[in-house]
């Protein structure tokens, strides 16, 4: 009886270890699914089920939150996230920090509030490198709905941060591994800790019992050879190592990892995300767009009217640099180009294939998107790099999720009515107006 128990001790240990690992894995998986819900159907999914469940917490009604969701993504999400600091401060708990009466004038025209000498405003302005929040022509109702949305989203993890996460370098679930536990429920953590403690206690107790029994048995003289053999038996690691099953499992796992990595690297061929070539002139967007707050369209003159945003011609540089920093060696390069009548040969960063048609004005003038949505925090870039993947999947994803900017645009009036009568529940996205059809971009 005893012998049987003793013989099974290593097996028991192994079983324990495996159970422990299994539980951990299960919890990790659970965490991953939570995470996935947050990322892939992204903004829309988060907007509907999550917020509908939330009103009690947020205090606002569902419609206002839904409206706030769209507005937030259209206007704020380029610089703000709710639970983390991006370009601007994290907005979670904003109602606790500031009253709505302060927020309204601030969002409408922040520079005015700063100029008025409001203490909090000045402090905030200085904290963020004197970087101004652009003014927004939003109504009071719209701002309250944004705030309602923010309140409803408070406390949710960073993974739910919609547009920003969707644009993040490792877009399509590649980031799923990192910080997976973060999404797991609080109970799971406690349960895990208790389990681990219980297991450790169990193992230690068993080992002590085992050793005690061994000592007792060793003291007895009436044991025959077979019993001694059992008593002295040790777990044979060599056998374990030589086990074909284990080797097989390890081999398969290794092959799968290799295959996965291989496919990933092949899929990345032609993908130039993060491409940051050295330019002939060390032009800093951080200085111009960030510090000096020069409007993008001042230099990229045709961004609101043409397919191309237009790389500024040297005469635009000269508007200022005929006066400013004329001694800088970088600026002198522009003078030289003009004198020699040889245009500056910039290195093109964002390269779409010829078969894809992209029009800036469609996205800026009509859709009202900010440059940062695709180009990233350009105002912080000393040297510009390709922020977004610029893959077809990336385009399509956005077209599927992004609500159409139909406001005050007579082109869409009937379409919106039609959409509302048919399926008002779903947002009127770009793709629901045919924005993912082939010949919208390929002809």
């Amino acid at each position, binding site marked *: 009886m005893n012998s049987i128990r003793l013989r099974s001790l290593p097996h028991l240990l192994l079983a324990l270890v495996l159970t422990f690992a299994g539980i951990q894995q299960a919890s990790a998986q659970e965490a991953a699914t939570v995470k996935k819900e947050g990322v892939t159907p992204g903004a829309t999914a988060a907007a509907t089920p999550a917020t509908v469940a939330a009103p009690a917490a947020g205090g606002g009604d569902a419609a206002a939150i839904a409206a706030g969701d769209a507005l937030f993504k259209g206007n704020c999400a380029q610089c703000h996230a709710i639970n983390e600091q991006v370009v601007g401060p994290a907005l979670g708990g904003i109602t606790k920090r500031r009253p709505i009466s302060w927020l309204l004038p601030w969002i409408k025209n922040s520079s005015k509030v700063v100029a008025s000498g409001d203490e909090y405003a000045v402090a905030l302005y200085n904290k963020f490198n004197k970087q101004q929040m652009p003014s927004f022509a939003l109504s009071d109702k719209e701002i309250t709905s944004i705030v309602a949305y923010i309140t409803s989203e408070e406390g949710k993890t960073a993974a739910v941060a919609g547009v920003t996460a969707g644009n993040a370098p490792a877009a399509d679930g590649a980031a799923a591994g990192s910080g997976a536990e973060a999404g797991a429920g609080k109970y799971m953590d406690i349960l895990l800790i208790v389990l681990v403690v219980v297991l450790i206690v169990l193992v230690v107790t068993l080992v002590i019992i085992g050793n005690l029994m061994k000592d007792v048995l060793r003291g007895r003289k009436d044991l025959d050879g077979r019993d001694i053999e059992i008593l002295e038996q040790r777990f044979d690691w060599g056998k374990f190592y030589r086990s074909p099953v284990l080797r097989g499992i390890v081999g398969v796992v290794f092959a799968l990892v290799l295959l996965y990595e291989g496919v990933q690297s092949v899929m990345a061929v*032609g993908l130039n995300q993060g491409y940051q070539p050295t330019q002939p002139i060390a032009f800093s967007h951080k200085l111009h767009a960030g510090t000096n707050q020069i409007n993008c369209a001042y230099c990229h003159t045709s961004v609101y009217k043409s397919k191309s945003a237009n790389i*500024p011609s040297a005469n635009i540089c000269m508007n200022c640099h005929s006066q400013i920093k004329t001694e800088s060696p970088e600026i002198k390069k522009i003078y030289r*180009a003009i004198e020699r009548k040889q245009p500056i040969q910039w*290195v093109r960063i964002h390269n779409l294939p010829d078969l894809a048609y992209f029009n800036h004005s469609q996205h800026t003038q009509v859709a009202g998107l900010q440059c940062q949505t695709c180009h990233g925090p350009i105002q912080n870039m000393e040297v510009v790099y390709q922020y977004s993947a610029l893959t077809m999947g990336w385009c399509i994803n956005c077209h599927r999720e992004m609500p159409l900017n139909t406001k005050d645009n007579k082109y869409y009036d009937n379409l919106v009515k*039609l959409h509302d009568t048919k399926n008002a529940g779903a947002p009127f996205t770009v793709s629901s107006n045919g924005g993912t059809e082939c010949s919208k971009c390929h002809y």
Partner: protein
Amino acid sequence: MKYWKGIEELESAPEFMQSAFAEFMPVKESHESKDDTSAPRRDFLKLMGFGVGAAVLASCETPVIKAIPYLNKPEEIDPLISNFYASTYFTGSDYNAVLVKAREGRPIKLEGNPESPITKGGLSARAQAAVLSLYDGGRLQHFAIKGQKAEMKQVDQEIRTKLAGTTGRIAIVSHTIISPSTKKAIAEFAARYPNTTHVMYDAQSATGLLQANGGVVPGYDFSKANVIVSLGADFLGTWISPVEYAKQYVVNRKVSTNKRTMSRHFQFETAMSLTGSNADVRVPVKPSQQGAIALALYNAVVSGGSVSTSTPYGKQLATAAAELKASGSAGLVVSGSNDPAVQSLVTAINQALGNGGTTIGTASSNVRQGDDARMAALVNDMNNGSVGAVIFYNANPVFNHPMGDKVKAGIAKVPLTISFNDRLDETGSLCQYSAPDNHWLESWNDFEPKTGFLSLSQPVITPLFTTRQAQESLLHWAGNNTTYYRFLRANWRGITPTDAAWDKVVHDGVAMGTALPAAPAMTAMSAAAAASQLSGAAKQNGVELALYEKVGLSATGCEANNPFLQELPDPISKATWGNYVAIPRAMAITNKWEQGDVVKVTANGHSIELPVLIQPGQTNGTVSIALGYGRTMAGKAGDKVGENAAPLALMANGIQYMNVVTLEKTSATSPIAQTQTHQTLMDRRPVVQENTLANYKKNPKEVTEYEKVSTPDGMEAPSKVSLWQDYQYNNHHWGMAVDLNSCIGCGSCVIGCQTENNTAVVGKQQVINRREMHWMRIDRYYSSDTHKSDFDTKGKVATYAAMEDPSENPQVIFQPMMCQQCNHAPCETVCPVLATTHSSEGLNQMTYNRCIGTRYCANNCPYKVRRFNWFSYYSNEKFEIVNGHMFTDLGRMVLNPDVTVRARGVMEKCSFCVQRIQLGKLEAKKQKRRPVDGEIVTACAQSCPTDAIVFGDMKDPKSRISQLLRREDGERAFHSLDSINVQPNVTYLTKIRNSESEFFGQEA
């Protein structure tokens, strides 16, 4: 019982038995093979493996692409936004007011200028293709002395010295010049060198017409004509000013429920022309009979005699004369003959009809001014040595004048020869000095096509090469160092006194005013003299030749190096790349000739060898050959395409484009590249429909036959039963309507589509292989004498065989055919990779980057409008010459940057100009409004000179297309092949013929 497999088994030979029961014969490993030439398989695999690996590694490197902005950006140019500039196309044949679409300073497309009171937004195929000629690598890129590159200064200096020393006559030879300022510049040159004379000639001469009308072309107005009688004038295709005339002609050809009348058009001609194919009554006559016809018509209309019906054309002529007389001032007679006697009678007939002020307007046309006699005199003078200097101003008489050989001999005898021609062509290469003129898209110029109507051309691009505008050269040599722009501007002071007025004219491109000096008067032959001359004319024996001009290439041959035009199918014969001898079927049968047999045509002691083409409608006993082909120094694409028929013309009373020829078969054959080889419809009414005006007048609801299909509920419209689910269109539903009554088949849309959509040119051999790439074609069908009603008498098989043969003088119907954008598209359902899908706006989308080239879609397309890229037309050196516009950096400037150049192995087709739709929608969205009807038009609809194509949003109830379809629903609107229920978004309107219809057999 045992069967042996062979004698080996019976003998049980050991070598055989070794493998007798094996399934496969043992394979010898090739690396053991002693044969050195066979590639060892394993080595091959090793090499290929390495090669693929190396290629993958090498291609992983991302190329560095430069973005080069302007140094100083012009204010009006924004990258990738098109600018439009008004200009004028006139190269000596047809006049077109154009709008030039420019991208970053590169002209990429020409469109009609709707402001023009003359061409009213229409554009000919030649003008559509003219933008390609700007980027022609065959142009002379610098000044030259004896063909060798020379400095402009040196050339100027030598020419000025030599001109000053010239004692004899100085001649400037040009085609018709309608530019007042150019004429002034020539006058200034003539003032400096008083011996100067300016000689104009036209490759398709109208001297006879000019003589009969006091030196000008009468201002015909076909829109006011109820009865048109044309004696061999191809006024819709090539004669004088085809776009202008087509615009007018079609006004009185369009019908609707509220307007059930149309003009009646008689055509007496030799070769089947575009105009003849549109005529209600077409009568084939010999060229030599034109005089007799004019005389008979004159006698009937003016003198009140009767027409003898004994001649083959007598009956129709009598009807024509009677109707003409009845129509009075709403009648019009035109003649393409260059015989002054014929033209005198035609003028007399028109005067007798009293149509001055109605069908012959007061504003006369200036687009033909050439004088055959003066040109002939100059050629003689050159040969007898009395000419001291000759300047060829964009004229190539060595090639396109019937006395080309004499011109060539004469040039050698002239001490100073200068050429302004844009290339070292047949004439230019013989000249000592070449001072190439700018392309018209690089030039300032003014034009007065009709008295009182002016237009301008302005440079849209800086000269690509070191050329100089010819007028500036002339002024320069005359000692005036001003630029031609300043010279022109000064001439316009009278018309545009202020800068604002001038700017408006430059903006509009057209203006009213007169600037051209009056044409030199020509003495007309009296009608009586003409009548007596014609009645005394000797009867011709033997095979008669008619020389004609093609719709694509003018008789000057100046567009020969333009591959777009070379590959434009002739509207009638559908032949591309070259000319041929068009013969009637009867001649082919008697001589046992087959299409493609090369015959030797001899006249004037000159002979050329060309393949024959059996042309229905060609008058028996005659042959026709197109002019303008057979260039030898046009450039890579245009050289040695066809033969030059100009020397076959008859020189009597000026140039007569006819002669008596002898034909002799050679042993050679030469295939003719035709894009359509089936000739008739075989009574298949579902494809294309037509009916008569008489029936239309009776009941417009019965002119179109709507097919019904059997259903459990009886016969129903095909759309009642369907396997497909219908699409729902919320936003737009693009549609097109093609009025077959207005379509004259000119082919302008084909070229418009080609320039807009970067369609490849494939060359003669590939057309023969039926691999032409045009997204849009114009199907031409002839009527047949045999109909289904003959089944009982002739038997089915024999009838069907006979139905494939067109009549001797068939009626013709044109049907523009492009992707029908089916709502139930058969192509979409068979694509294995979803490369062709349906859009929410009713478009049948083609996604090139998805296509893997199975060609299932083309197979399943009932309209055969899909085109497959068999080659990399942009990089395969086989196509370097014909498809130069995709090959060289120079040529590529013409490509439309909004449309992808398709790669090898993908399918392509008409997209309804989706790039224009997208652009139009975007503009509307930017301005926060719905698109306005007419704002979004396809290239074909826009280029159509007869407004036969209407494009628009069928979802917009107020759009023209919606209104048209509502109006014509149940009357003329039909879908081609309706019974297969693919529900096209292209609707055709039944053709209405103002005569008996011979197309379909009588309904049983």
